[in-house]
């Protein structure tokens, strides 16, 4: 089982140069921060769902849908309750909130969801190695970029190991999903030991494993020829930057 979202479906979005994807993601994040109209954020949310379809990555979205909805609902409630304003209105029986609280909460929740969806879309169409290569091409030192992708890879390995350890303990009658909270906490202790020891052992062998395959922090790995900025990359990049510029201009205009 994978805990990550990338699947090489060969969609048009997968085919973009990683530099395009990274730059477009950053531009999109910036635009989301600047947008202050709920309807635009809602429209962007719908557009992002459309992009998931285009990327043939709706599976990633489905996996995260419940969590995202929970996050959206929780942030909406928290912002509604914490919004301060001079005038109070009654929301439901016995509960009063500041006027405009629900509108503001909807805007902030949508902003948060837009960012989550944009990030998820990026991870769904960009492999860890392409992310690392993209960072190298942007001038990030190779060891730092490789460490980032390796840490993601190790999370996958640890998650898979953790799942196996839980299974192995369950088979021996130690079911961590049953009983009181105290019992569950106690049941987790035997899981942590093999997981930590596995992790330590892996870290111990990691250096030998990497160096045996020539890895060195001083390496200058040549990934440049793997990627080429094509016309569609420039167009996508121009589109993303134009969108950001438009959002900033509209935000700056007096209302």
């Amino acid at each position, binding site marked *: 089982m*994978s805990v990550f979202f990338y699947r*090489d479906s060969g969609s048009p979005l997968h085919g973009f140069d990683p530099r395009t994807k990274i730059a477009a993601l950053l531009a999109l994040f910036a635009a989301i921060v600047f947008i202050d109209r709920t309807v635009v954020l809602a429209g962007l949310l719908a557009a992002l769902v459309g992009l998931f379809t285009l990327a043939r990555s709706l599976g990633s979205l489905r*996996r995260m849908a419940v969590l995202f909805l929970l996050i959206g609902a929780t942030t909406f409630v928290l912002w509604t309750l914490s919004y301060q304003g001079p005038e109070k209105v009654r929301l439901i029986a016995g509960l009063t909130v500041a006027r405009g609280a629900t509108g503001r909460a909807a805007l902030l929740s949508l902003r948060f969801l837009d960012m989550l969806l944009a990030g998820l879309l990026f991870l769904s169409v960009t492999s860890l190695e392409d992310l690392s290569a993209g960072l190298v091409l942007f001038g990030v030192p190779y060891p730092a970029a490789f460490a980032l992708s390796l840490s993601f890879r190790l999370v996958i390995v640890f998650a898979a190991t953790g799942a196996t350890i839980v299974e192995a303990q369950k*088979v021996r*009658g130690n079911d961590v999903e049953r009983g009181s909270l105290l019992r569950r906490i106690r049941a987790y202790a*035997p899981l942590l030991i*093999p997981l930590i020891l596995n992790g330590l052992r892996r870290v111990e062998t990691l250096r030998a494993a990497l160096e045996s395959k020539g890895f060195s922090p001083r*390496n200058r790995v040549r990934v440049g020829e793997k990627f080429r900025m094509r016309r569609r990359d420039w167009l996508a990049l121009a589109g993303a930057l134009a969108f950001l510029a438009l959002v900033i201009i509209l935000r700056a205009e007096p209302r």
Partner: protein
Amino acid sequence: MISLSGLNFRYTADGPPVLEDVRLRIAPGERVLVAGRNGAGKTTLSKILSGVIPHVEKGVVEGECLFRGRRVEDIPYPEMVKDIAILFQDFEAQIVSTSVGEELVFYPLNTGVPYGRAREEAARVLEEFGLAGFERRAIHELSGGEKQKIALLSLLTVAPSWLILDEPFTDIEPASRESILEALGRSSFRGGVVLFDQELAHYRLFDRLLILHDGRVLYDGDPGPAVSDKGLLDRAGLEAPGMLRVFPAGTTVDSVRAGYAFDEKAFAGLHRAEPPAERLIEVRNLSFGYKSSAAPVLNDISLEVGRGDFVAVVGPNGSGKTTLMKLLAGILKFREGDILCRGTSIRRRDLTGIVGYVYQNPDNQIFAATVEDEIAFILKMRKADAPVIEEKTRRIMDLLGLADKRGVDPFTLSKGDREKLACASILVAEPEIIILDEPTTGLDFPSVQELMALIERLNGQGRTVLMITHAMEVAAAYGRKVLALEGGRVLFFGEKRAFFADGNLLDRARVRRTELMDLSLNLNGRLLLGPDEFRACWTKR
């Protein structure tokens, strides 16, 4: 040339010697098989030959280790890795990428090869080893055997002069092992191979055999004389290959035909049909796929396992063996089809206490502070009485040769002992259904015999055993039935004799007959499965 002279090694200054007075010279292009049982010093020697020791791992090295006439410690390690590639026993630790294509270019990219050429090398290697089209496969979707193949092939992308392989076939199906070695000979790889293993099955494909025992070189020379020297093999804890397991050294096929008589009555007795057993597990139209993968792993599986059956589960890497066993154990949940245990769907039945599942990697199971606590854990979870726990724990430790290690920290045990401990910690509860995922992987011959004797004894007491295995000697020697999977479907399920008699089935299951089976067919066309059957059917005139 790699040359070791008077080499002694220990991991710490006050630790026990791991290698003693090792002297050897390995010529370019030479193919050397280094054999020895658990703890013989194979892994340490592999690391010394490849320069991992002393460049990455430290220890106390005495004597001289030269590579191309230069002292290994004087050669920068990045320079060495362009010439000597090593596959670790823990091959998964060496996989650092998320897809096959990326994994194959990692090594050349890090040795200064431009991306385009690295891609070409990766494609060439996959093509030469019959795995073209694997580039886009995600690593997490590969079976253990497929990962081991990819880890091995990734070494060839830098065209090293030496390939050091530490037990490279533990997870790979039998038919692929020999074909990988043969493909190495046919491929563009022209370097030397030093392969470390616990068995001698492929000795014919090597120029030279080196036997290690307790850190010393017991034999170094032509494989032929050594594999027929029973005394030497017994001393080293190695299983004699082929004919030597049943006939004295020097015996030929002709001399068996002339000097031995074949007992047809005894042979007919081997075919005695077992009475049908009471149905215990029933699988009905079971299909299954993982959420992360589009392709289903199992397709429309239907089968019945009787109480007291002993089934060897075989099939190519990625055929769905482990997935099916985890479904039977109730570890994975299914949607399509059904599994019944004693007539009730396991969707509605808790299998805790009924099924014992031994994982392939013992380190995912082990957690306790001592061997004794580890074994007793399952009984304590079931709230067994203290005297019962003590008695059962002691008995299984005695049976598996772990009694003298009862107070030892399990993580300090050798891989073989950890494997035995993982089995013991499940088998001690004497579950009605025992499922084992490649329990003999990493075990030397004597340990395999101890473990299998215990499993056979439990089976004799009426326990049902399902055992995934790539070791055909084990599948042939133990149990009655074979379940062969291919591409997530049942290829064969029935008496093992019928399975091993059908060459077409064996090819599809990526399985090979053992040398003894081939010998029996060669002698008179009658298939015999193991040494016991040989002794029963071929008697001296």
